């Protein structure tokens, strides 16, 4: 019996092919034009009247890169994000390891905690943290350590999911049992057995939490008053529109730099995970595992 088998995606009709191409063309346009606009803005002298800027210049790039305030904003943001990633790795790895090899009751507790920053807006968490710190430790308000703690708290699920997944993939329970049978101490096991076997999870989780902290604005604005991170600087610029000072051109440069940092991080994550850009809806893996157990 000859059955004309076609793929479900429409490929055969001229009309539907046209519709398809229009659809993808519109999507391409929508996603590319804003980036191009920001890029041109960063190189333009004045751009308020004509279709294209009146002239092109490198002065904004030079001015921005040599600006002390922007340099210090970048160094604040980078140290904030680095500390966030390191703290998250330091607190998550032992907990995830212990929940796998000794105390299974740790897992549900951590998973409920991970749902908080996943579902609740950062504005809400930040406001709550501000009120709470006002009650217990007012001297920390508006300081760098409080913001680090806040960022570590909202970014920890990225590290937890990455590390826990890597532990599952490496079969850490058996490895650790074997190491224990050979007489290794818990610290030796963590350092010599666990860490080397979950390095991909550590890199992925660390980079994701770094990125989450680097681009974070709401919490920085609410509990980091007096600090100067890159998103806070950008917010100030976007509000103080004065064309004479060229603040928008410099904002264009900083926007591109921020974007470049975040993009490189996500590209490294994709590369590190062997081209798997795609992941299932968050929480799916955990639910799935629970269902199969």
């Amino acid at each position: 019996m000859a059955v004309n088998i076609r793929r479900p995606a429409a490929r055969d009709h001229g009309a539907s092919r046209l519709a398809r191409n229009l659809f993808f063309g519109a999507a391409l346009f929508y996603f590319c034009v804003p980036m191009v606009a920001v890029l041109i803005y960063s190189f333009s002298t004045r751009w308020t009247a004509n279709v294209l800027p009146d002239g092109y210049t490198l002065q904004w790039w030079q001015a921005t890169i040599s600006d002390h305030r922007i340099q210090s904003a970048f160094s604040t943001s980078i140290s904030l994000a680095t500390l966030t990633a390191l703290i998250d790795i330091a607190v998550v790895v032992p907990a995830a390891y212990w929940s796998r090899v000794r105390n299974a009751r740790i897992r549900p507790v951590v998973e409920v905690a991970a749902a908080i920053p996943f579902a609740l807006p950062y504005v809400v968490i930040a406001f709550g943290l501000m009120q709470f710190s006002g009650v217990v430790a007012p001297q920390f308000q508006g300081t760098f350590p409080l913001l680090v703690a806040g960022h570590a708290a909202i970014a920890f699920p990225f590290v937890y999911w990455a590390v826990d997944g890597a532990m599952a993939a490496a079969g850490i329970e058996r490895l650790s049992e074997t190491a224990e049978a050979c007489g290794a101490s818990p610290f030796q096991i963590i350092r010599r057995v666990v860490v080397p076997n979950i390095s991909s999870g550590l890199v992925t989780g660390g980079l994701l939490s770094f990125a989450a902290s680097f681009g974070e604005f709401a919490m920085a604005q609410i509990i980091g008053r007096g600090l100067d991170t890159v998103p806070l600087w950008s917010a100030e610029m976007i509000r103080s529109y004065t064309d004479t000072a060229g603040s928008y051109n410099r904002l264009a440069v900083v926007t591109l730099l921020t974007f470049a940092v975040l993009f490189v991080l996500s590209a490294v994550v994709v590369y590190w995970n062997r081209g798997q850009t795609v992941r299932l809806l968050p929480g799916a893996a955990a639910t799935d595992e629970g269902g199969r157990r």
Partner: protein
Amino acid sequence: MATLSRPIAKVGGLESTGGSASPSLLTRMRGWLAAWLPAIPLLLLVSTCLIAPVVVLIWQSFTGMGESGLSLDLWFKVLGQHVNQDAIFTSLVLAVGCSTITLVVGAPLAWMISRMLRGSRAFWLGLLNVAANFGGIGLAFAYMATIGTVGMLTLIVQGLGIAFDAPREGSMPALLVAYEYTNIPLFVLLTIPAMSILREDWWEAAQVAAATRLVFWRRIGGPILAPFLAAGWLLIFTWTLGIYGIAYGLAGQSGATAVHLITLQIGSALQSDVLLGPGRAAILAVVLMVFATTSLVLYRTMLRRALRWL
């Protein structure tokens, strides 16, 4: 998972040397420490920076600023104010609109990308990944540079002689256009794996059984994908409710004419609210929490349903 239920070797030893029927407090403490110690730093971080703040907000929403015991007074006062009702309503409308547009555009996009050849698939995934990283203040600025009053597209269209007024920066359409820029890529990246669940043989089998494409989608494709798409919709809904940076960047420009959103109200209540103080922000924050929690519970339910097909 046999290892998990295994008693801890050291504690077992201690208990047997104790020998009594009820282990001493010290022994119990040791057992507890051995079971929980490595998790304590994480639990400390989580309880001080996530759980305590949530509890404090709920508490403050009922006590005002702790003067007069528990009461619903502040709730009535705040929810009776027009500006707060407006903020809640606008936030919900924006989130529903945004996630629905995301679904309508994102689902076909995800489907078609999932059926592409490797090369163009990689290109689109890369592009979407790039767009998903563009957010916050930077995206608000990109909006202005593109279709703001003197944005690139505005100038081009006006240059062609067409009278074109871009939506005002703090208006609903502007926020929609800007939000979709990250929402659609996120939705597509999250739902593409689900698309591969729909196997080619099922379409072939349906064709052998003389099904048309419409019947296939209504009886097979639709029902299988629906829970995944619904879960994605809920996720985008929740995230859109909570967006702050883009809204702050855009709505800051038009000041009084800007839309009222819950997140923006929380932010501004912190800076200048003499009348009800942080109590108002606390209530709005709790309202957001209720929406987010409900949505998350529904999301989990949908996901459990969806994963039957894996």
